[in-house]
């Protein structure tokens, strides 16, 4: 029991990718338990949004946990937390359909995220200088660059950026997400071509 406690404590420092790899290699569910435990809250909130019932949502979380425990070793998952909301959404919608319950228009709310290139470990900071970041920023679309500048350098909130630029709030979020992703891609390319 004591050794298991120490081991579980040590697993808390592991990255998602390492846990997925260890689980797929050994089938030892403690790795998956640690991994899933990190995102239980998010999974529960999404389930609750679809099912609108606490108990049913808890059951759905456990069903998803069991299902992933079974299927994960046969999959090639690159970024677990990006893949997870898609699975949760699909399971909730399947559940509602099987019960003949109304499927809300939330179906398209969780888009399949664009996978980021994993050239550099996601948990480590990129070894990039300020001038290189500024050069990469200069290559972005204007709307993306303006939003990123206001958000990162003026420390404005989404709402403030929206007020400052006149872009609707959803567009601001989109410019920031896509702009940041584009910027990372460019910086990763820079690292690999050095």
């Amino acid at each position, binding site marked *: 029991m004591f050794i298991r406690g120490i081991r579980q404590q040590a697993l808390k420092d592991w990255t998602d990718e390492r846990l997925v790899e260890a689980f797929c290699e050994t089938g030892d569910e403690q790795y998956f338990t640690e991994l899933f435990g990190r995102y239980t809250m998010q999974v529960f909130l999404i389930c609750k949004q679809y099912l609108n019932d606490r108990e049913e949502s808890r059951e759905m979380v456990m069903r998803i946990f069991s299902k992933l425990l079974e299927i994960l070793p046969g999959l090639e998952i690159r970024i677990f937390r990006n893949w997870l909301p898609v699975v949760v959404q699909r399971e909730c919608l399947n559940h509602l359909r099987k019960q003949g319950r109304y499927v809300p228009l939330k179906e398209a709310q969780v888009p399949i995220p664009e996978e980021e290139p994993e050239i550099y470990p996601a948990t480590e900071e990129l070894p990039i200088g300020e001038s290189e970041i500024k050069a990469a920023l200069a290559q972005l679309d204007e709307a993306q660059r303006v939003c990123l500048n206001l958000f*990162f350098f003026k420390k404005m909130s989404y709402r403030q950026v929206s007020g400052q630029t006149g872009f609707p709030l959803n567009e601001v979020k989109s410019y920031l997400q896509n702009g940041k992703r584009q910027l990372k891609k460019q910086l990763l390319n820079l690292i690999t071509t050095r």
Partner: protein
Amino acid sequence: MKELTAPTVCLSLEEIQHYAKDRLDEAARFRVENHLLDCALCRAALDAYMANPDETLGADLALLQQQIQKAVPPKKKQMQKIKFNYAAAAVILIIMTAAAVVYWQHTRYDRLYAAFFSAPKAGDVIALRSEQGTPGAAPTFDQAINYYDAGDFSAAIPYFDAYLKGHPDDFQAGLYAGIALLNGGDPEKAIEWLTTASINDPKLFDEANWYLALAFLKQKNPAEAVKILENLSQRAEPVFAGKAKALLERLE
């Protein structure tokens, strides 16, 4: 600048709740919004929370964490049970094998003793003693020899005891008493009589020592037995030297 490229950590429930209620300071709000740019899961969770804000989710999450820690699907449980059964069977097999080896080793000396022990007939010797003018035997001695020759060693022992109390210098009788005691299950007392016979009567030395070696073997004291057998194999009459060599080979 660093915030643009540094990895970000997923949101806690408190962060989601406070962000939704606009209760975060600027730094905390920036951390939340910066992470939301990277994490589809937290974005979906925040949207879900904002669609139906609920301040009392802590109990549900605590319950879920407990269930997840305990949850092992039936298939896994079954596999664990099978693994455990295999492990238990392996342990039992190892223990049984070890016990068999220990038992085999422990009974090895008994088996060697049984293979090499045979009691000499005493009747001929008694007749020879009469011919040689050895003093007339007491009734107790005759009775002891009768039982001894019949193979009833346990019945012979009390008569040998009674006779030897009155005739402690009859070492030949002592030798037979020792053999009877050895086969009757008292190797310790047998060793006393056999040692006395071997020390005091040179004619009995080889025979007494042979049975002494067997007595030590029966006591699971192979070291003493080997010493005696090595001596016999080098110095004894051919009959006992041959027996001693044969037993030594088996012991080695």
